[in-house]
């Protein structure tokens, strides 16, 4: 057997080598994503949801489940669920019902989680993802509102567990997909598309380190060409796209190996261990999953009026996919460029503001934002919102390339000065100070070219004798003599003319 890490890869190679002699497997994946909603207060209480407060300072009587308290639903949480539903073309249920899901852990002291079972707020809808073989539609089953649990700490409390209920009652939107996903790459594409969307429409901050966006993957395999779904395993709490991909790859390899050895898959919940890159059993079907849902008598049916839905619909921004298509049509960008620029609303807005200052040069703006800007932001670990070079200044810089005042190379030097905030971030002052203005004057350039030709008779002879390489060497020397300030295209043309005269 291969070592564990490359199990899946090995299985695929085996399949390749053995051709039709062995079973071909199809991977079937459905994802459940928990997106923490960006409300100020909790879903059923007025306690704050701010991250990182000292333990239990944001846990009020309702979150602690003290006797006699009643939950009151947060309008902001419902509004965000509706926003999501509208942005994926789903139906909004009215009435929508809250249910109790029985659950016995001290991180939810009521003994149940308030969730939704029948009639979730959001029903259906679709997400379009970009795959290697083109666009693919992933259907959504539903998205429902529920409360998050608190945190349990098992170390350092002399055999006891420490409970922090700050997170208990934080609103979650659980977004459930149909089993339409066929590979770990598609799962990642789906999760990323969803991640962009929830941030774009402002319902979730998407911070994966803080657990604001977590994925559970339901994974099964079946012989290719068959309809019946295989027994699935659920991998819980994947909090990065990389782990999502690796956990699925491992799990598929594990299931295929069991089946090819004549075994059967047990339905169970598994955990991904990133350190060992493997999934392992958390709990089996026998001892769980009978949550005995029933409508919560503490909460009345939620009515959502068409007027409210309409009002929320009017505040929805242009969605990422619509923007991508517009960028391709309006600025002649490739699908790739359009999707990179719409990875976040901030980046897309930055791009549009830049193009607004420099109409007709979408591709140039796109290149600089995806190249220099995004590279420097990454290097300095800052978000585009705090980019030291604003769209207007970037546009001014690019305008100087367009009007041939400076070369692209000089622009990069100026970009660095702008980034550091030098010379009051005035592009034209920096050009003057650093003497980066391009030589476009034919006369001045001609003098320089003549000097270089006179100083290098051997290379001139070589070129005329058929050695193409000599040309590049001459160009290099001219550019050096102009300190890189000559327009390369212009130098090229002039040199050619002179050599061939």
């Amino acid at each position, binding site marked *: 057997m291969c070592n564990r890490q490359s199990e899946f890869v090995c299985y695929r190679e085996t399949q390749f080598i053995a051709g039709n002699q062995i079973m071909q497997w199809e991977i079937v994946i459905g994802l459940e994503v928990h997106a923490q909603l960006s*409300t*100020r*207060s909790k879903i059923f*209480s*007025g*306690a*704050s949801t701010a991250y990182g407060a*000292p*333990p*239990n*300072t*944001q*846990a*009020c*009587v309702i979150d*602690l489940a*003290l006797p006699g308290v009643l939950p*009151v*639903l*947060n*309008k*902001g*949480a*419902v509004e965000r669920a509706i926003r999501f539903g509208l942005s994926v073309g789903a139906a909004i249920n009215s*009435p929508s*019902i809250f249910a109790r899901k*029985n659950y*016995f*852990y*001290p991180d939810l002291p009521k003994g149940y989680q308030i969730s939704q079972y*029948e*009639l979730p707020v959001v029903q259906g809808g679709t997400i379009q993802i970009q795959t290697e073989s083109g666009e693919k539609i992933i259907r959504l089953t539903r998205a429902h509102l529920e409360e998050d649990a608190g945190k*349990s*700490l*098992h170390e350092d*409390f002399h*055999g*006891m*567990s*420490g*409970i*922090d*209920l700050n997170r208990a009652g934080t609103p979650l939107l659980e977004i459930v997909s149909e089993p339409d996903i066929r590979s770990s790459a598609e799962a990642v594409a789906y999760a990323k598309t969803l991640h962009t969307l929830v941030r774009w429409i402002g319902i979730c901050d998407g911070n994966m380190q803080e657990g604001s966006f977590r994925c559970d993957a339901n994974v099964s395999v079946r012989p290719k060409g068959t309809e019946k779904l295989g027994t699935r395993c659920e991998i819980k709490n994947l909090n990065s796209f990389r782990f999502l991909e690796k956990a699925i790859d491992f799990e598929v390899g594990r299931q295929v190996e069991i089946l090819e050895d004549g075994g059967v898959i047990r339905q169970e919940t598994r955990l991904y261990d990133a350190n060992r890159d493997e999934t392992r059993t*958390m*709990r089996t079907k026998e001892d769980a999953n*009978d949550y*005995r849902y029933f*409508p919560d*008598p503490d*909460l*009345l*049916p*939620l*009515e959502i009026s068409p007027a409210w839905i309409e009002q929320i619909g009017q505040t929805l921004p242009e969605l990422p996919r619509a923007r991508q298509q517009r960028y391709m049509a309006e600025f002649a960008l490739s699908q790739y460029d359009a999707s990179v620029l719409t990875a976040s609303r901030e980046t897309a807005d930055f791009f549009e503001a830049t193009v607004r200052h420099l109409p007709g040069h979408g591709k140039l703006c796109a290149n600089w934002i995806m190249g220099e800007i995004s590279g420097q932001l990454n290097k300095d670990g800052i978000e585009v919102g705090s980019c030291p070079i604003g769209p207007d200044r970037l546009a001014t810089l690019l305008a100087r390339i367009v009007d041939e005042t400076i070369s692209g190379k000089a622009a990069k030097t100026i970009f660095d000065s702008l980034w550091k905030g030098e010379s009051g971030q005035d592009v034209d002052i920096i050009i003057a100070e650093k003497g980066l203005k391009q030589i476009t004057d034919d006369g001045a350039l001609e003098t320089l070219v003549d000097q270089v030709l006179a100083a290098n008779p051997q290379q001139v002879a070589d070129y005329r004798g058929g050695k193409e390489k000599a040309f590049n060497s001459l160009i290099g020397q001219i550019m050096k003599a102009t300190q890189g300030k000559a327009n390369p295209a212009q130098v090229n043309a002039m040199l050619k003319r002179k050599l061939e005269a």
Partner: protein
Amino acid sequence: MTLTVDDVKRIADLAYIEINEDEAHAALTQLSGIFGLIESMQAVDASNVEPMSHAQSVTQRLREDTVTEMDQRELFQSIAPDVEAGLYLVPKVIE
């Protein structure tokens, strides 16, 4: 539907309620009585009645999304059996 004593034990188990044999049989009698009531009610033609999810025919009131609760940790923890470093301590739970 007929309930068995094993069903009662399973429900008790899921609900984390410890019951002995006698209690299980007593609960079976009581629960079966409730099932009998439900059966009688199911004989009524309710095909024109929309199912209700709540006993009252009113809808959920919504709260504005504002923080109204202040930190009262000290007060709440004053009645907790055991606390440390701001955490509530409970018997160890690990899956």
